[in-house]
């Protein structure tokens, strides 16, 4: 894991969707689904992206994968800017990055058997040199994801939800990618099956040296599987740090609220359920200044006027907030970008 060369980085990445609003649709508005995200993903890590529905986590994943065009910013894969690449020049990168979607029934072709779902991309990307090698690699893959080669001649509808997600994982791995975006891979599964799939993903990562981005709304899944975690709200990253820091020492008021809302499967640890009031604002009308201020219990006038700085509050723990909330109540301590001594040694935007 070399600090110097991240596998993938995004710089100020944005994806705005134009929509019509107002009277007779005269107004032109934008849904700012992703609104300036800067992150870098290290080789071999599992990077978690959490947030509530509509926070832009799936759009971020799709934009990264070049499944949808970015409206601004850059995507660097192994140092190469792939933001504007097309056709033949993009194809080698397509092979290296793959995605597993939430609903495997929607992402697998219902009229294609599993063998051809696995071998077709292999041939297309010249991962194997012949049809027979493709077939034997498909058999190897299907065993790797815990199914057996008999399953290759079956169709997606013949599988249960968990098996289908195993097939979707095998299909993603068919082109020997080095980077996989997992978009809510276990959300449609039962909890006993979810545990099987999460373990499978971990084993595959260790065996094949994969780098993952895990997009999830389930904080417990993220805590159990990710090395680092970013918390998103309305298209921006509010906080990034190693997972244990996010969960043990959250610094952003949103992260705190999110964590305190998660019920714990232990009746002896019932909580007062600290409740975050209200709903997420409309993404066409994102609040000025800090976008979380409308629901933040610590918000001040400054939060409404000034865009919050990105602060490295402790080593490699970044927060986009005006204040150190752990000091609120004692004395209000404002944060500035130079908060942490080591911050200056990092290149700008290296989050």
């Amino acid at each position, binding site marked *: 894991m070399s600090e110097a060369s991240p596998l993938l980085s995004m710089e100020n990445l944005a994806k705005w969707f134009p929509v019509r609003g107002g009277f007779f649709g005269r107004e032109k508005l934008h849904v700012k689904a992703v609104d300036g995200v800067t992150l870098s993903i290290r080789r071999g890590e599992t990077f978690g992206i959490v947030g509530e529905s509509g926070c832009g986590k799936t759009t971020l994943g799709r934009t990264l994968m070049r499944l949808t065009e970015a409206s601004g910013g850059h995507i660097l894969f192994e140092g190469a800017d792939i933001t504007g690449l097309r056709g033949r020049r993009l194809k080698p990168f397509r092979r290296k990055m793959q995605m597993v979607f939430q609903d495997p029934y929607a992402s697998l072709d219902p009229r294609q058997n599993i063998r051809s779902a696995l071998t077709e991309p292999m041939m297309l990307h010249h991962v194997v040199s012949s049809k027979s090698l493709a077939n034997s690699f498909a058999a190897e893959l299907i065993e790797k994801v815990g199914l057996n080669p008999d399953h290759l001649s079956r169709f997606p509808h013949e599988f249960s939800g968990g098996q289908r997600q195993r097939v979707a994982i095998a299909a993603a791995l068919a082109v020997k990618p080095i980077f996989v975006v997992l978009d809510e891979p276990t959300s449609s599964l039962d909890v*006993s099956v979810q*545990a099987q799939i999460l373990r499978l993903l971990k084993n595959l990562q260790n065996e094949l040296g994969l780098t993952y981005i895990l997009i999830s709304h389930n904080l417990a899944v993220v*805590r159990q599987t990710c090395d680092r975690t970013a918390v998103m709200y309305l298209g921006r990253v509010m906080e990034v740090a190693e997972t244990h820091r996010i*969960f043990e020492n959250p610094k952003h008021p949103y992260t705190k609220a999110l964590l305190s*809302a998660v019920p714990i499967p232990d009746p002896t640890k019932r909580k007062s359920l600290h409740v975050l*009031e209200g709903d997420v604002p409309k993404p066409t009308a994102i609040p000025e200044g800090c976008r979380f201020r409308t629901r933040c219990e610590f918000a001040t006038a400054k939060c409404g006027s000034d865009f919050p700085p990105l602060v490295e509050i402790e080593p490699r723990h970044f927060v986009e907030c005006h204040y150190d909330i752990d000091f609120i109540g004692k004395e209000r301590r404002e944060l500035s970008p130079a908060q942490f001594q080591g911050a200056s040694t990092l290149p700008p935007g290296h989050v």
Partner: protein
Amino acid sequence: MSTTKGEILRVSNLRVSFNTYAGEVKALDGVELSVKKGEVLGLVGESGCGKSVTALAVAGLLPPNAIVLNGSVQLDGKEVLGMSKKDLQTIRLEEVAMVFQDPMTFLNPVLSVGSQITEIISTRPELFTSRLINHRIGEIERGGAKSGPMEEEWARLQTALQRGKLSKKDFDRLAKEYTISVLASVNLPEPDKVFRMYPFELSGGMRQRAMIAMALVRRPKLILADEITTALDVTVQAQVLKLLRDLKTEIDASIVLITHDLAVIAELCDRVAVMYAGNVVELADVGELFSNPLHPYTKGLLASVPRVDVPSASPDAGIAGSVPDLIRPPSGCRFHPRCPKAFDKCPQVKPPFIEVAPGHFVACLLYGGVP
């Protein structure tokens, strides 16, 4: 078996099948369940285990292709199975209310929230008249100042209460006021505004509150809440869970909370019933179930739940295999093909539901019942 004192619901040996093109789906295979007055019973299990079918049977809402083969559902002493359609309507109006996972499907999109709720009230004036009047009288009395028009209204309502009749105008006005007060009780912001809004104008969390309000307006003795927080974001889920917890102390109703999420169960329930493939396999107090699970399925389920409060342990393997096809369910104990502790008797004998400790029931041959 009938409901004993202190029980609002008793389901015994309930067996329900569905006729489908693929064959007969044996959805419930002898469900045993009881709900005590004033408690929150959690009904937990994975998809297809029969938790929703159990609730539908209790509310008399089973679809036409369902066949009740056996068993009884006693709701406050009355047998629900085999009841006439009209009696079932009365039961659903007065005694049991169901709240569903997806409120958008169960709210009428072309009626405002308020009119959908007042409709419930105005279809049964005989049931609601005295309740509406008492509500308004209570409000006036709480207001203190009994003077002028208020005093006049109070006197008028008192006579109306004695006669048991209200003018149409007064009835509609009081129904609206009562509805708004119920909307306020589920913490909907600006309830008088929500009264006039249509379902599409509400957010997911607000819609779910509107559904809960719709259930509460009837003052049911039993609320069946089917996966009501599943479609919600975690912060909104916390709002709804908090609401349920507050309501539990305010209203005099029992709640059956159906969910696949053990964390929600731990947060809210008094007792828990764990279902698997059409059976209740374990039932105990919530503390007992989480600290001393007995059934191998319960153990596997608890070990599978990822936790947000402890650092990453090696994730457990879950439970091997997947949920069986209920057209051809496994013989004997339906869990035996996935059970790490299965032995030779398990495929042969259906384990009885036995009380192994006071209030702790389990259906597993490891704890007895081997012939």
